[in-house]
C-alpha cells in the first residue's frame, strides 16, 4: 500500500511544495501535476549522450530508481507492517539509499565534467555527515521503543511516554534537517537554481536527458517521499485505528510536511555551503542528546 | 728485623706508586716501576720468612729478575727506539693525579678493611698497598697517552696483583706461578711485538692516534 501510494503520489508531493512556495511568493505557480507532465514529456524524448560516457552512465538512473523502489518495499505505512519487514530493516533502507547515491555519483563522474564532479563531491560530503545522524536517530528510536524493525518503531512512537517524549522531538528535528539536506532543499540547496557552482544535486544530473532524466527526477521524488514518510511516521502522534483512516491521516501528515517545507523554502535563504556541515553536525548532536534523554 | 724490612717494602711500594703518579718523564717512571718490581719480588720472602723453601726462593728470584731487571730494560730499549722520553700533556696532570691517587688509596683501604680481622696486625698494609698498586696501574693506563706509559701502567697493575697474591694466597703457590707466567707473556708480547709494530707503523707511540676505530 505504501509502495503504491509513493509511486503514485511522490511527484504530487513535489508539486505541492512548489505550489505553496508560489503562494507565499504571491504567484500562481505551476500546476500541481506539473511534475507528471514533465515526466511524461521526458519519456517521450530521445537522448543525448556525452562521448565521454560509458554504460555506467546509461545504467545508473535505473539502478537508482530500482534502489528507491526496493527501499519503498521496506518502508511501512506508519502503524502497519510493510511488505518486507525484518529486524534492522531501517539499515537496509539507508543502504539502498546509499546505492542510489553511489550510482548517481558514478554517473556524474562518468561524464568527466568538472561541474558534475564537484556536485558528486558535495553529495558524498553531505551523506557522510547525514549518515551518522540517521543511524543514531534510529538507534534511539529502536532503543526507546524496543523494536528492531521499522514497523515496530513507527507503529506508535508516542508510546515512549512521559519525560522521554522529549527525545522524540529532538529526533524529529534531527531527521528533518537530514531530510532537507539529503533532498537538496533550501536552505541547503536550491533545486530550482541554474547556477551550477552553487548546486549539489541538480548539478550531478546536468548531462542526463530524455527518459534517463525522467528516471532520475522520479527517483528524487521517491527519495523525498521515503524520508518524508519516515519523518511523518515518527512525528505524527495520530494513529486512526482503521486502515483507511490511517492512510488518510498519513496523507494529511504528508501534506502538512509539504506545507512546512514550502514555508521554510519561502522564508529562508540558501545558506553558505560551509554552514551545511554545521547543520548536519547539529543533527547528529541532536540525536545524541535524544539518546541521553532516552537512557536517563 | 722482618718487620723493619716489611715496613721498608711497604714504604717503597707506596713511594714508587706516588712517583709514578706525579712524574711525566719516562726514564723516571721506568726506574720507579723497576724498583717497585724488585721490591714486590722480594715480598713473598719477607712475608713468609719462617716457612721459606726452595720453590719460594726460585719464584722470588725469577720474579726479581723479570720485574726488576728484564722488563725495565726492555721498556728502556723501546723508549729509546721510539725516541720519546716525556709523557707530554697527559689527560690528567701530576697534581690532580696525586689527589686521585690519594682517593684510590682510601678506596683500597676501605675495600680491604674487613681483611683486618683475619690478618696479623703488621701485615695489614700489604693488601691495602697491593690493591692501591692495582688501582694505580689502572689509573695510569687511563690517564696517560703514550703506549709505553700504558705498558708501564699495566706492569704496575701486575705488580699489584702479584703482591696481592703473595700476601693472601701463599697457600696456593700455583697462583703465584701464574702471575709469573702472565708477566712474561705481557713482557714479551705486548712490549716486544706490539710497541715495535706501532712504532714502525705510526712513527710514534702516542695512542691518541690509535683511535680511528670507533662506534
Amino acid at each position, binding site marked *: 500500500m505504501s509502495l503504491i501510494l509513493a509511486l503514485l503520489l511522490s511527484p504530487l508531493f513535489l508539486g505541492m511544495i512548489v505550489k505553496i512556495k508560489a503562494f507565499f511568493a504571491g504567484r500562481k505557480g505551476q500546476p500541481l501535476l506539473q511534475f507528471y507532465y514533465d515526466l511524461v514529456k521526458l519519456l517521450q524524448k530521445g537522448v543525448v549522450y556525452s562521448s565521454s560516457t560509458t554504460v555506467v552512465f546509461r545504467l545508473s538512473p535505473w539502478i537508482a530508481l530500482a534502489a528507491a523502489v526496493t527501499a519503498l518495499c521496506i518502508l511501512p505505512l506508519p502503524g502497519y507492517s510493510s511488505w518486507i519487514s525484518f529486524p534492522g530493516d531501517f539499515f537496509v533502507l539507508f543502504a539502498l539509499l546509499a546505492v542510489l547515491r553511489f550510482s548517481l555519483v558514478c554517473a556524474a563522474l562518468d561524464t568527466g565534467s568538472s561541474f558534475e564532479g564537484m556536485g558528486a563531491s558535495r553529495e558524498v560530503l553531505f551523506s557522510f555527515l547525514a549518515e551518522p545522524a540517521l543511524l543514531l536517530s534510529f538507534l534511539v528510536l529502536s532503543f526507546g521503543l524496543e523494536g528492531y524493525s521499522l514497523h515496530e518503531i513507527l507503529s506508535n512512537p508516542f508510546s515512549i511516554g512521559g519525560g522521554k517524549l522529549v527525545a522524540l522531538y529532538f529526533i524529529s528535528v534531527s531527521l528533518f534537517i537530514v531530510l532537507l539536506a539529503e533532498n537538496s532543499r533550501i536552505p541547503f540547496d536550491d533545486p530550482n537554481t541554474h547556477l551550477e557552482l552553487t548546486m549539489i544535486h541538480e548539478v550531478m544530473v546536468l548531462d542526463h536527458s530524455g527518459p534517463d532524466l525522467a528516471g532520475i527526477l522520479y527517483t528524487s521524488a521517491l527519495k523525498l517521499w521515503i524520508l518524508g514518510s519516515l519523518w511523518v511516521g515518527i512525528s505524527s502522534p495520530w494513529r486512526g485505528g482503521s486502515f483507511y483512516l490511517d492512510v488518510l491521516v498519513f496523507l494529511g501528515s504528508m501534506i502538512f510536511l509539504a506545507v512546512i517545507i514550502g514555508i521554510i523554502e519561502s522564508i529562508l535563504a540558501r545558506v553558505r555551503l560551509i554552514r551545511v556541515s554545521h547543520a548536519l553536525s547539529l543533527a547528529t548532536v541532536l540525536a545524541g542528546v535524544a539518546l541521553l534523554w532516552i537512557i536517563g | 728485623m722482618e718487620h723493619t724490612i716489611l715496613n721498608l717494602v711497604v714504604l717503597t711500594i707506596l713511594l714508587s706508586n706516588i712517583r709514578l703518579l706525579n712524574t711525566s718523564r719516562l726514564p723516571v717512571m721506568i726506574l720507579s716501576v723497576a724498583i717497585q718490581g724488585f721490591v714486590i719480588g722480594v715480598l713473598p720472602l719477607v712475608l713468609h720468612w719462617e716457612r721459606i723453601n726452595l720453590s719460594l726462593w726460585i719464584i722470588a728470584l725469577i720474579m726479581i729478575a723479570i720485574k726488576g731487571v728484564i722488563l725495565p730494560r726492555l721498556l728502556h730499549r723501546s723508549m729509546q727506539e721510539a725516541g720519546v722520553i716525556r709523557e707530554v700533556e697527559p689527560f690528567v696532570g701530576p697534581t690532580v693525579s696525586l689527589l686521585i691517587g690519594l682517593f684510590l688509596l682510601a678506596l683500597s683501604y676501605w*675495600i680491604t678493611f*674487613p681483611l683486618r680481622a683475619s690478618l696479623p696486625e703488621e701485615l695489614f698494609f700489604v693488601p691495602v698497598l697491593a690493591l692501591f698498586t*692495582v688501582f694505580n696501574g*689502572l689509573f695510569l*693506563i687511563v690517564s696517560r697517552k703514550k*703506549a709505553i706509559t*700504558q705498558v708501564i701502567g*699495566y706492569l704496575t*697493575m*701486575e705488580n699489584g*696483583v702479584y703482591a*696481592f*697474591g703473595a700476601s*693472601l*694466597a701463599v*697457600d*696456593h703457590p*700455583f*697462583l703465584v706461578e*701464574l*702471575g709469573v*707466567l*702472565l708477566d712474561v*707473556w*705481557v713482557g714479551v*708480547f*705486548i712490549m716486544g711485538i*706490539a710497541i715495535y*709494530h*706501532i712504532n714502525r*707503523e*705510526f712513527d710514534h707511540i702516542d*695512542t691518541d692516534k*690509535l*683511535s*680511528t*676505530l670507533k*662506534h
Partner: protein
Amino acid sequence: MIWSVVIIPFLFGLVSLLLRNHRTLLFLLLLGGIAHFALTVWFWLYQGQWSEGAYPGTSIVFLDSLGILILTVTSFLFLMVAFYTKGYLRNHTERSSITIGCLFFFLATMSLVCVSADMGLLWVAIEGTTLASAPLIYFHKDHRSLEATWKYLLICSVGIALALMGNIFLSYAGGTYIDSLHIPDLLKNAHRFDVRWLKVAFLLLLVGYGTKMGLAPLHSWLPDAHSEAPSMVSALLSGSLLNCAFLGILRGFSILREAGLEEWGGNILILFGLSSLLMAALFLIRQTDFKRMLAYSSVEHMGILSLGAGVGGMAGTGALLHLVNHSLAKGFLFLIAGNILTIYQTKKIESVTGLIQEAPRTAFLWMAGFLAITGSPPFGLFFSEWIILKGMIESEQWVPLVIYLVALFIVFLSMARYVIPMTFPASSVPGSPSVTGGPVSPAGSGGLSVSFGGKEPLWMWAPALVLASVTLILGLFIPESILSFLTVAFSGWGGV
C-alpha cells in the same frame, strides 16, 4: 687422554710453523680440524660419564658436560672454518705458516679452556687464547688491524689481570678448606666459603672474563677486533672465544650457586646482560660497516647468554642452547661476510648492493643468516630466545623481559635496514612495475673477477651452508635428550 684435545692441535701448530708450502699448510689445517673434531666425537661416545657427574681426568683437566658442550661447538666451528680457510686463503700465501700455526694454537688454548678442571689453569688458558689470537687479528698488517690488536691485547690483559685477582680472592675465600683451585673441590666446599670474599672474587672474575666475553660496557675491544680480523678469525672469535670466556664466568657462577648466592650473582649477570643488549641495540642503529654490525650483534647475544644464565632455571638451559645456536649462526655469518668482503672489497654497507645478482648463494645465506641471528623461526635461535623468554616469565622478571624484547626488536629493525639493501639491487627502472634492473656493478667489484673467478667457489659457501643447516635443524628438531643434557650442563652437576 683428555690432554690430547690440547696437545694435538698444539703439535699441529708447531709443525705448521716449520712448514713453508702454502698448499700443504692449508691441507694440514683441514687435517687438524678433522682430527680434533674426530677426537671430540670420540669423547661423546663416553657421554654417560659426565652426565652422571663423574669426572674423568686428572685434577687439572676433566671433561664435564659444560666443557664438552663448548668443546664440541668450538671444534665443529673450527672444522668449518678450516674448510673455509682453504678457499679464503687460496691466494693469500704470505706468512701463512704463522697464521695457520696461530689458528692451531688458538684451537689448543680454547680446548684447554674447555677441559680445565682448575680455576688457575682455566685462567691461564683464557690468557693463552688472547695471545694466540692476537697475531691472527693482526693478519692484514695495516694501521687499522694494528690498532685493533693493540686494543685487544691491552684491554683483555687488564681484564685478565682482574680475573687473576678474582682467583686470588677465591682462594682466600676458600681459606683452609681447599688446597687448590680444583673446581670439583671448590664446588664441594663452596658452602663453607667466606661469603664476602667469594662475592668480591666473583665480581672480579666476572669483570675479568666479562671483558673477554664482550659484556657491555666492557666490550669495547670487540667491534674493533672482529671487524679488522680476517673473516674466518672473526668467526672463531665470535663463535668460540666468547663462549670460552662465558665458560669462565659460568664456572665462577656455579661456585657462587653452591655457596647459596645464586640470586645475588644472577642479578649481576642479568644487569650485565641487559646492559649488553641495550648497548648493542643502540649501537646497531647506525652502523656503516657490516662486520662491525655482526660484532655488535655478538655483544647482544653475549648479553642474552648472560641474561639467561642470570635468570637461571629454564632460562639457563635456554642460554646454553643459545650459545650453541649463536656460535653456529654467527660463525656462518662471518664467513659470508668474508665472501662479501672478497666480492666487493669493502666493508661499507652502503657500497654493497645487489648481492643477489652478484653472488646468489652468498646472498641467500646472508639473508638466512640475518633471519637466523635475529631469532626468526625456523632457525634455532628462535627457540633458544624463546626458552629464555619463558624462563623470565616463570621467574617473573618483568622489567628484564621488557628490555629484552625491546632490545631484540631494535636489533632486528636495525639489521633489517642494512641487510635488505645489501641483498637486493638498487637500480630502479622507472615506469615498469615488473622488470628487474640489470646487474649493478658496485665500486670495487673488480675484486670479484680476481678472487672469485666470476663465481663462488664451493669452499667458500659450503661450510657456511653446513652451519646454516645445523642451525636450521636445531630450529625444527630439538631432541628431549639435548635439552636435558643442557639442563644438566647448566645446573645439574653442581651438587657433587
